[in-house]
């Protein structure tokens, strides 16, 4: 009998924390999303069913943010996967200072995303920042460019900064994948007369696919949840907002808890679908 209780006893603090601070709020958020609830009109709170969702899906503001989210998602996933893979090849080369290089490569991941955003804002600042000094110095422009003042250029820079932070994880996962391939396989292939390209195509790539999948799905979740970098690079302006910023602004700036919760639920749906793929790829074991 004692044995039966022990596991639950061990799990109870975790269950308590997760229950109160995660699961209860998720359910509560859903119930908020079904209400008309503005902090500016505290006496007028009532159920409106799905009306918040309908009004969001009919608003230009939401679709504008949604486009921005999709843009960031596409650019970040593409660039992170390609550059992360290349970085892993680079880091796999054995040199004296490999350990330090690997640690340096992790820095963008390890540091506060908001502060990273600020560092890059200085690089792309509108006056004589680093980028403008460089383009003018090279004669590519004759006056400073306003990098962060037009929608697509801002979004591209946001995506680059997020990519910069996401590369380390993908590179590391690829590296782990690369190093888990038994050396004997390569030897056998070489004895069988395979050249470098066939070896890459028939051994390296297929065996690394599960690891790439982990990288891609985890990057997708990161890319949908971008918040800090957008605020760092463009403040709370509308220009570069994604759905998450939209949800934050609706809730805490316009104080519309009902609508804000509904926007949040739409993001969660979106992130959740990708998340399930992520968890699947985590759970898959690689076999040789």
């Amino acid at each position, binding site marked *: 009998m004692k044995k*039966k209780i*022990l*596991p*639950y006893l*061990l799990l109870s*603090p*975790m269950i308590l*924390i*997760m229950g109160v*601070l*995660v699961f209860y*709020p*998720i359910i509560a*958020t859903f119930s*908020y999303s079904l209400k008309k609830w503005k902090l500016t009109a505290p006496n007028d709170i009532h159920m409106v069913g799905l009306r918040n969702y309908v009004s969001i899906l009919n608003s230009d503001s939401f679709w504008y943010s949604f486009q921005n989210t999709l843009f960031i998602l596409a650019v970040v996933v593409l660039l992170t996967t390609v550059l992360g893979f290349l*970085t892993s090849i*680079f880091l796999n080369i054995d040199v004296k200072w490999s*350990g330090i290089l690997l*640690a340096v*490569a*992790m*820095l*963008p*991941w390890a540091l*506060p*995303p*908001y*502060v*990273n955003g*600020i*560092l890059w804002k*200085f*690089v792309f*600042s509108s*006056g*004589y920042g*680093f980028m403008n*000094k460089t383009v003018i*110095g090279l004669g590519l422009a004759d006056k400073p460019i306003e990098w962060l003042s037009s929608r697509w250029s801002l979004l591209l820079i946001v995506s680059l900064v997020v990519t910069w932070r996401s590369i380390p*994880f993908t590179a*590391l*996962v690829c590296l*782990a994948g690369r190093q*888990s391939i038994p050396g004997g396989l390569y030897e056998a292939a070489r004895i069988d007369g395979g050249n470098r390209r066939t070896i890459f195509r028939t051994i390296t790539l297929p065996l690394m696919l599960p*690891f790439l999948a982990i990288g891609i799905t*985890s990057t997708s979740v990161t890319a*949908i*949840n971008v*918040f*800090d970098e957008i605020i*760092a690079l463009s403040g709370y302006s509308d220009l570069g907002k994604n759905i*998450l910023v939209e949800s934050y602004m609706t809730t805490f700036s316009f104080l519309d808890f009902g609508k804000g919760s509904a926007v*949040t639920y739409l*993001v969660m749906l979106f*992130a*959740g679908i*990708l*998340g399930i793929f992520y*968890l699947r790829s*985590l759970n898959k074991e690689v076999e040789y």
Partner: protein
Amino acid sequence: MKFGKKIGYLIALVIFLILTLGPFLWTFVLSVTPEYAMMEKTTRLLPEVITYDNYRELLTSGTQKGSILITGIRNALKAVGVTLILGIPIAMMSAYALSRMEFKGRRLIKNLLLITMVIPVMATIIPLFRLFVARQWLDDVFWLSTVYVSSYLPMVTWLMANYFATIPKELEEAAQIDGCGRLASFLRIIVPTSYPIILSAALIMFLNTWSQFQIPLILASSLETKPVAIVVSEFMTKDSIQYGLTAAAGIIAVLPPAVTALIFRKFLISGMMGGAVKG
């Protein structure tokens, strides 16, 4: 061929270093540039005169900006302390139960825990904000830190469970034959053999807590709770932005985690890998 390979590697190395460290170096240059030189319309990258005034102002607690930044750093460290004290034991207990014991609902609990890894902060923060307002927790680093813990538990528990699963069961069985109870064998076998993963987990929690922005933006309302990233953001939005000062604050804010990550790189990397790859 050999020579060509070496050149290729060196080029890759230079590109890698510029792209990784460039923003830090540029921000450092700005932080030691006098304010008047920053507005000069020149393509020269380095300033003619170097000044450490910004650092001096930020690191003396007498000045207004300095004391705000120092309080922010102290708040972040306090939160790190609370998250570690709460998070590590709770994650270890859960990981032990989930990886070493058979009981009803194990799969369900494990899956429910993992699924929260991908849920955005915004999905929970509105009710939490109400809870914090009602209980007057908005000024309290402790309750703020429990919210951080709830966002780390899935990842850290997963990490530890994977590691515990690699410790041979025989070790524990032998200890139990020698008269150790379940608890004693956990403390004497599991805890000492898994110190590398405990250190990795602590490192990941430290870095994440130091980085917090979105949660404290909503749940920390006073100077006594705001962590360092929020303080830097307020330097950025105050009506008169002093670039040099903000740059210096940014450098100060990244130094502690950067140095920690470089020193404990082995544990950081094995922790990140362990989170992604089944042990």
